[in-house]
């Protein structure tokens, strides 16, 4: 019998480790990735020829290890960089490569599609100079540039102090680090966070280093707005006591956590469940990585936010589940070791999620005139009106009536915020307004003729 065709989408920590494990079992996986070089977003590499020593900080060894896997495996894997998988239907992947369109059939598929910033509108968020935190980090890691000279960091999530630290180390003037979640939420999660003592220690180290840079994190920030004419000039915030402060800056990096890139899982027909802590719909996944669609597996942040270390573990574990399903000799010791490590990681992640609850209170502060969907220029007021006046009680109906989620990003940026806003207006839980259906392509593709 011919070897099954194993395809993997995404060459971040999860996809790379999955490919390695499948290759070790003697199958030759096809590893698709949008980027020019492996690493995903977290271990993103600078363009070929550009060296950026020290950009991965404490994670340098992990980053370099991930980067080495594909080259070291040589022809034991079929690595296809610069390839966007833009659609999935039955057993076929539709591809966009620099030379044009293509497709690939598969027997087994691992989706390791990663995550992106979760955007949340706030007054002034569309001003030039306001970036997502991930955007700010990629500017530094890949292009070696900062988003500004005087940078304010604001949002919720464990990456906030990390990126602030990276900017300070790179020589930027970090003028504020504002956390919109309460400090108490973090303290109460300390026992769970202790399950991954090394990771917690790193977080504390970044916080301590930030203190050396005279950067104290302000917790429990109640309201934020960016101000400026034609360009951000200041970040204004109300602290936990209600006092208003104005900090001059020329750039703002904002992050409200991460969202999983689930479009391919949706197009594959995976069953989704609502995750009440992360407040997003996610494809169902067993601890071993199986989805609800036979032959389709999920690993890493694309299925649920777990971070890079968890992604590596899940990538390996998911590959072992796949190998078991195609009757290839597995590695029993490795399976047990991974299951133990994954259980510890899961406790840590749960505590971390609870430490950074989604700041739903910011949604109410979004004025009617504020743009929620930047692709289509749709305001919060237009969404609220459709929800109130036009019976829009569900996300796809809201989309039909207002165009929310119909622009270039297809709702990847605005979808969560719109769902929160719709739920608040209707007085229901965000879960009950549903989610935008994925439609191909998962990212824009060009109009090309038959001979591109």
């Amino acid at each position: 019998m011919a070897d099954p065709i194993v395809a993997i989408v995404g060459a971040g920590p999860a996809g790379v480790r999955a490919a390695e494990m499948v290759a070790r079992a003697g199958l030759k996986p096809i590893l698709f990735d949008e980027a020019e070089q492996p690493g995903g977003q977290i271990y993103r590499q600078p363009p070929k020829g550009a060296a950026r020593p020290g950009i991965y900080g404490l994670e340098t060894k992990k980053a370099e290890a991930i980067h080495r896997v594909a080259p070291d495996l040589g022809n034991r894997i079929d690595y296809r960089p610069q390839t966007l998988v833009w659609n999935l239907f039955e057993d076929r992947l539709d591809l966009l490569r620099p030379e044009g369109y293509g497709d690939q059939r598969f027997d087994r598929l691992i989706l390791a599609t990663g995550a992106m910033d979760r955007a949340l509108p706030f007054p002034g968020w569309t001003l030039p100079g306001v970036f997502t935190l991930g955007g700010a980090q990629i500017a530094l890691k890949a292009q070696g540039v900062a988003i500004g000279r005087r940078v304010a960091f604001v949002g919720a999530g464990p990456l906030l102090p990390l990126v602030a630290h990276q900017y300070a180390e790179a020589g930027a003037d970090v003028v504020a680090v504002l956390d919109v979640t309460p400090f108490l939420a973090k303290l109460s999660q300390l026992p769970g966070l202790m399950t991954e003592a090394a990771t917690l220690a790193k977080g504390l180290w970044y916080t301590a280093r930030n203190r050396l840079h005279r950067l104290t994190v302000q917790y429990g920030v109640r309201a934020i707005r960016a101000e400026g004419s034609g360009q951000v000039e200041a970040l204004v915030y109300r602290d936990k006591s209600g006092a208003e402060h104005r900090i001059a800056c020329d750039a703002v990096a904002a992050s409200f956590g991460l969202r999983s890139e689930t479009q391919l899982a949706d197009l594959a027909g995976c069953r989704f469940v609502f995750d009440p802590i992360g407040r997003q719909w996610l494809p169902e996944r067993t601890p071993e990585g199986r989805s609800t669609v036979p032959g389709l597996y999920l690993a890493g942040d694309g299925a649920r936010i777990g971070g890079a270390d968890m992604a590596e573990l899940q990538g390996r574990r998911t590959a072992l589940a796949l190998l078991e399903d195609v009757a290839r000799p597995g590695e029993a010791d490795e399976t047990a070791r991974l299951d133990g490590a994954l259980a510890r990681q899961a406790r840590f992640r749960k505590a971390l999620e609870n430490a950074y609850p989604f700041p739903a209170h910011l949604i109410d502060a979004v004025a009617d005139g504020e743009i929620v969907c930047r692709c289509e220029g749709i305001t919060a007021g237009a969404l609220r009106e459709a929800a109130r006046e036009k019976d829009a009680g569900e996300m796809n109906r809201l989309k039909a009536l207002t165009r929310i989620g119909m622009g270039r990003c297809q709702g990847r940026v605005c979808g969560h915020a719109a769902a929160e806003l719709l739920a608040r207006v209707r007085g229901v839980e965000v879960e009950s307004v549903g989610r935008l259906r994925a439609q191909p392509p998962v990212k824009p593709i060009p109009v090309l003729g038959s001979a591109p």
Partner: protein
Amino acid sequence: MTERLTADVTIIGGGVAGCAAAVALRRAGITVVLLEKGMCGAGASGVNFGGVRQQGRNLAELPLARRSREIWDRLAEMLGEDVEFQATGHIKLARSDADMEELERYAGDAAAHGLKLQMLGANATRAELPWLGPKVVGASLCAEDGAANPRLVGPAYARFARRLGAEVREQAPAIAAERAGEHFETRAEALTITSRFLVNTAGIGAGKVAGWFGEEAPLGPVVPNMLVTEPLPAFVTRSVGVCGGDVYVRQVARGNVIMGGGRGWGDADLNTSRPVTDQSLAGMAKTLDLVPALKGASIIRTWAGIDGEMPDRIPVIGFSATTPNLVHAFGFSGHGFQLGPVVGEIIAELITEGRSASPLEPFAITRFAGMAEAPPASAGVEH
């Protein structure tokens, strides 16, 4: 516990035709319950190309299309909201002399129905659409045709019907209906409706409803495949089709260029459809032949939707041949959007007066007597 409702009329299917029927019936003072399996206007009515087109229709449909076109002019006022209807004109392109002859012949036939088409030679066509690719030899223009936003029309009709007092139930698929004495009993989950009349505007599900009354309706699925670009500077000033119908293009006011062509994949039983990549890529190539300037533009979304198609590609509209007081309107074969408003009025006429002001003979269900099989899927028809 099962809820029981009584009304003069039960309507199965909340597309434009069903919702427009609810509106027309309410305006005549008749009580209505409408059952929609999903959301009103989210099926074929909501995911089509949005063409409000008379040109190129089967001649039998032209009297209805002429009447519907008048409604389109006052639709926004009637519904109390904008549905983005614009009479951009519809231009049908000829890519050969044979195409040109076909257009001229059609223009003559259409004139007899009062539809005025303007014939354009190669130079006039190019003056009209200077960005056209080299394959075009001429065209015919219907200045009063245009397009509307299909996502808005059905929901707007449904809300208007509700404001007029219709009982509109969404997420309520009809499970069964039968004749009980002088009445119909229609069942949805936890709901039974008793009514004197039953209207079948169930789209792709209409064949099943007809079957409950022993009526043969060879209804097959037709799944148009569509693509849309990101917003571009306005340049496609007309809604554009071609002879043969294998590609059609328009640009919305927002700037997005919508292109259709080919067939998607659909499963009527699962009520699901998907665009098909090879069809989308072929559609891109055909569109580029007509509109070379679109090369490299970003496609941000592709989609498909399922409509019911009859073997002769014109709908069934009229009374059932087996069951008194059962009215059918289905099988619009992928081009029912423009007709929806008038079909609602026709259904109300049939119920209130027993006859319609429009000629319905070509749409009688009896034309399919003895034909229970669905037709093969068609290709090359403009939607």
